[in-house]
C-alpha cells in the first residue's frame, strides 16, 4: 500500500506524465509503461484522474475586450511617438478610435509614469492654466492621473507633461487634490505663500492671496513648507499659515472638504465672511450701500441649495432683508 501510494505520487509529480495527461504528449512512452507494469495500472489511472480533476475555472474574456485593450495599447504607442517628434495621426485613425478616446485620457497617465527614457525636452512642455470663475467649480485630471477639484475663483497651473523627477503645480485659491502615488516623483503644490510636498494622498489647499493659507490633509502624509520652516501633517490635521507662522490643528471636515460635495459650510463665521463665501460660491455681488456690516456670527450648512434658500435662512440669523436683481443682491440690515 505504501509503495503504491508513492508510485501514484511519483506519477502525479512527473512532468512527462503530466504532459501526457494534459496535452497527450509522450503517448507511446506512457502506454508502453503501463503495458509493462500491469500491476500499477490502478495507480496509473488514479494519477490520471488527479491531474484531470485539477481543471481551473477561468474568466471568459470576450474578443471585444481584447480588441479594446489592443486599441488602447496602440494609442499609447502612438502617443509616445508623438511626444518625441511631430507625428500626425491620419484622420481615419482618429475617427476609428473615437470610442477609445476616453480611455486614452486615462492611459496617457501611465506613459510618463513608466518611461524615464525619453524625457520630453523642457522647451516643448506647455503650461496649462485652468481658472474657475466665481460660482463655479472644476474637476481636472492631471497628466499623472491625479484628480483635482478646483473651487470657485481659483487658478491652477500645471505642465502638459510632468518631468521625470517631480510633479510641480501652482495654485492660487482653493483646491482638493487626490494625488496618484509615484514614489519617484513627489507632487509639489506651490501657492504664493507656501509649498506642499506629497507622495500619494488627498488634501485641500486654500491659499487666496489676501487670506490666510490652509492645507488640510484627508489621507496620506504631506510636508508643508513656508519661509524656510516645515510641518509634517497627519490625516485629520491642517496647517494654518497666518502672519508667517504655521499652526497645526485638527480641522472641521465640512468646512475644509464639504465644498467638494456641494456643502456650503459656515462655522462661527462673522457676517463679513459669510457674504464673502456667498460671493465665491454663487458668483454674485452684494450691495450694502452705506451700511456697516454688523458684528454677528453664523454657523450652519447648506447642501446643494440655491442662493435664495440660503439667503432666506441667513436673513433671520443675520437680521437682514434682501433684493435680488440679476447678479447683484441688495442687503438691508434691520
Amino acid at each position, binding site marked *: 500500500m505504501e509503495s503504491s501510494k508513492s508510485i*501514484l505520487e511519483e506519477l502525479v509529480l512527473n512532468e512527462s506524465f503530466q504532459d501526457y495527461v494534459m496535452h497527450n504528449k509522450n503517448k507511446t512512452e506512457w502506454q508502453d509503461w503501463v503495458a509493462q507494469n500491469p500491476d500499477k495500472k490502478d495507480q496509473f489511472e488514479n494519477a490520471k*484522474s488527479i491531474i484531470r480533476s485539477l481543471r481551473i475555472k477561468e474568466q471568459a474574456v470576450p474578443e471585444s475586450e481584447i480588441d479594446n485593450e489592443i486599441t488602447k495599447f496602440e494609442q499609447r504607442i502612438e502617443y509616445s511617438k508623438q511626444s518625441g517628434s511631430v507625428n500626425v495621426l491620419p484622420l481615419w485613425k482618429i475617427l476609428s478610435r473615437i470610442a477609445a478616446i476616453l480611455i486614452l485620457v486615462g492611459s496617457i497617465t501611465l506613459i510618463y509614469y513608466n518611461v524615464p527614457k525619453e524625457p520630453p525636452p523642457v522647451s516643448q512642455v506647455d503650461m496649462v492654466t485652468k481658472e474657475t470663475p466665481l460660482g463655479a467649480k472644476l474637476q481636472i485630471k492631471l497628466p499623472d492621473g491625479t484628480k483635482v477639484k478646483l473651487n470657485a475663483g481659483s487658478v491652477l497651473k500645471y505642465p502638459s507633461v510632468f518631468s521625470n523627477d517631480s510633479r510641480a503645480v501652482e495654485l492660487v485659491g482653493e483646491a482638493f487634490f487626490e494625488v496618484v502615488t509615484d514614489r519617484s516623483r513627489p507632487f509639489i503644490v506651490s501657492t504664493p505663500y507656501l509649498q506642499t510636498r506629497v507622495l500619494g494622498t488627498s488634501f485641500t489647499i486654500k491659499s487666496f492671496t489676501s487670506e490666510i493659507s490652509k492645507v488640510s490633509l484627508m489621507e496620506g502624509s504631506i510636508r508643508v513648507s513656508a519661509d524656510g520652516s516645515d510641518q509634517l501633517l497627519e490625516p485629520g490635521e491642517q496647517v494654518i499659515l497666518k502672519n508667517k507662522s504655521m499652526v497645526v490643528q485638527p480641522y472641521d471636515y465640512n468646512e475644509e472638504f464639504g465644498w467638494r460635495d456641494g456643502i456650503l459650510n459656515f462655522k462661527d463665521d462673522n457676517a463679513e465672511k459669510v457674504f464673502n463665501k456667498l460671493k465665491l460660491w454663487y458668483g454674485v455681488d452684494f450691495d450694502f450701500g452705506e451700511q456697516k456690516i454688523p458684528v454677528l456670527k453664523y454657523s450652519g450648512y447648506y447642501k446643494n441649495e440655491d442662493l435664495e434658500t440660503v439667503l432666506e435662512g441667513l436673513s433671520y440669523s443675520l437680521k437682514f432683508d434682501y433684493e435680488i436683481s440679476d447678479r447683484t443682491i441688495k442687503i438691508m440690515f434691520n
Partner: protein
Amino acid sequence: MAEDYKNKLLILYRDHYRTLFNYGLKIIKDKEVVRDCIQDGFYNLWTDPSKLENVVVIKSYLIGILRNLILKHIASNGKTDGLKDFNTFEISIEDTLIDNENKEATSQQLQRAISNLTPKQKEIIYLRFYEGLSYEEIEKITNTNYQSVRNLLSKAIKNLRKYILNFILFFQIFLIL
C-alpha cells in the same frame, strides 16, 4: 522596423491576453488593475525591444512580467510589506470538467482542499496544470528553485490526494459491487 516590432507586440498581446488576464485575476481581483499591468508590461517591451531578444518561452516570460508588475502595484498600495510574494492566489475548480458522475460532491471537496493550500502552492498548481508551464519555467517566474517547486507541488498534491482518492476509491468500490 519599428512597425514590424509593433506588429509583433500586437500579435503577442492578442495571443496571450486571455492567459495573462486570467492569471492576473488570481492574484488581484480588480480587473482594471490587471488590464493596466498587462498593458504596462507590453509598453515596457515596446520601449526596450532588447528585452525580448533572448526570450525562449514567451508565455512564461510574459506571465513573469505581469506577476512583477502586479506585485509592484500591491506593494505601492501598501497592502504588503515586501515585493517577493502576494498573500492570495484564488483558484476555483471547473466543476463541469471533472470526468466522473458525482461531479458536485467531488468538486466541492476538491475546492475545499484547494482553499487550504498556500498561495504559492496554488500558483504552482495553476501554472503547471492549467497553463502547462514546465517546472523550469515555474522556477523562473516564482523565483523558487526547481526542488522547491517540486516539493511545494508534492505537498499540495498530498493534501489534495486524500479528497480526490476518497472519491475515486468510493467510486471504484461502487463499481465492484
